[in-house]
């Protein structure tokens, strides 16, 4: 084995761990580059890299357990029920809906005349129907309404503020990206494997906007793909919410929370571009992205 001068471990075990770390997006750009070079130079490492990628893809494609509406409503009721009964005995008190056993035990411990007044619970046994109804409505919004809500309120302050918050958090995080790669053929499959959808990801490096990776954002309770571009010292996050119904809107300034922010839709995706760069530069990015993405 030839000695390398790239700061990576030289033992076979060490370099294998580094390949796993590369696939997992755990390396910074410099280390990722060094590992990519080793892989390119060594067919055995390339085969290992391909194996890990294939395995990760296969595991990522495994069916995930369904979160049934009923289950989601049960969990949502945990939050809702106790919020409606702030005078209840302890902060950790189990909400009525799922605490039948505890309620019964309490009922046998306490004579009826001493029982804490709790008309809702009494009337419906351990079933807090108001909490349940509220949580079902909320679940319906979460489960099916989010897309429409986002579409019709695309430029609403709520979503804009949420995306601004996500972008700000990403700047504070150890790494602003979950998958480090300048290669859109890596970023798109990664996003596809995570959330089953990925937006156009043109590399605009020649225009001064280099694609450096991607991550998954949560907007209005739904995972959505985000691309990260670098422009000089600034990061630009491009959140792409999949659209149904295909409205096309022109770029609109929705700057929020101290960041420049532009929103537009191309029919397939509803985009938010956000950065701490100046507006004209962000507009330039948006124009180039739209041209390249068509």
């Amino acid at each position, binding site marked *: 084995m030839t000695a390398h001068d790239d700061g990576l471990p030289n033992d076979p075990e060490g370099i294998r761990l580094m390949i*796993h*770390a590369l696939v997992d997006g755990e390396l910074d750009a410099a280390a990722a580059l060094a590992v990519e070079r080793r892989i390119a130079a060594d067919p055995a490492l390339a085969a290992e890299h*391909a*194996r890990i990628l294939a*395995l990760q893809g*296969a595991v990522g494609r495994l069916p*995930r357990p369904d979160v049934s509406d009923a289950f989601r409503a049960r969990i949502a009721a*945990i*939050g809702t029920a*106790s919020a409606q009964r702030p005078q209840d005995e302890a902060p950790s008190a189990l909400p009525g809906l799922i605490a039948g056993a505890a309620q019964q035990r309490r009922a046998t411990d306490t004579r009826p005349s001493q029982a804490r007044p709790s008309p809702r619970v009494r009337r419906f046994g351990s079933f807090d129907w108001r909490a349940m109804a509220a949580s079902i409505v909320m679940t319906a919004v979460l489960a099916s309404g989010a897309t429409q809500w986002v579409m019709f309120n695309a430029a609403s302050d709520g979503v804009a503020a949420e995306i601004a918050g996500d972008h700000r958090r990403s700047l504070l995080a150890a790494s602003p990206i979950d998958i480090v790669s300048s290669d859109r053929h890596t970023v798109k499959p990664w996003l596809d494997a995570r959330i089953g959808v990925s937006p156009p990801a043109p590399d605009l490096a020649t225009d001064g906007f280099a694609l450096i990776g991607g991550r998954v954002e949560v907007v209005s309770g739904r995972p959505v793909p985000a691309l990260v571009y670098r422009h000089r010292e600034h990061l630009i996050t491009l959140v792409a919410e999949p659209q149904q119904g295909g409205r096309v809107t022109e770029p609109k300034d929705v700057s929020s929370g101290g960041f420049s922010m532009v929103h537009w839709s191309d029919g397939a995706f509803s985009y938010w571009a956000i950065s701490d760069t100046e507006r004209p530069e962000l507009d330039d990015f948006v124009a180039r992205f739209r041209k390249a993405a068509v």
Partner: protein
Amino acid sequence: MAERFNEVVLPHLGDALALARWLTGNAADAEDVVQDACIKAHAGMSGYAGGNSRAWLLTIVRNTAYTWMSRNRSRGMMAVGDLGDLDEMAAAHGTSVPDEESPEASLIAKADTAALEAAIAALPQPFRETLVLRDINGLSYRDIGTMLSVPIGTVMSRLARARGLLASELGRAP
């Protein structure tokens, strides 16, 4: 409080169920575990200081799953061996598998769902848990290390070992 619970917990129910399903081995038990975990999460909401809410919830799910299994299952089913031994084993065997056992990437990519699920279920628990947290829940090495209270190097060697075992299992003739 309810709003915060909804923001912090509800988005991650899918991840919570997936983790609980792989730790307990079946979907029905997973719902029980996640429900218990969400009650604990709600009670402990004031202890959530921001940061990665998914990692925070999954930590509670993991702890709840082990408590739940120790209560609901016989000792025999919980036997996972000594963790230290497993890590030593991982280190001694290394992450590499002999060449003749390393299947082509294309063979792995074609593995059917049932075979892959069986192979994951057959992994020793610390390896399975690390693989699920990384490849199904998408947590970072750092988050996993914090959750399991192990150094990042241990996370990396367990993960590499888990993937090596899976790859050689899937490479066997069907």
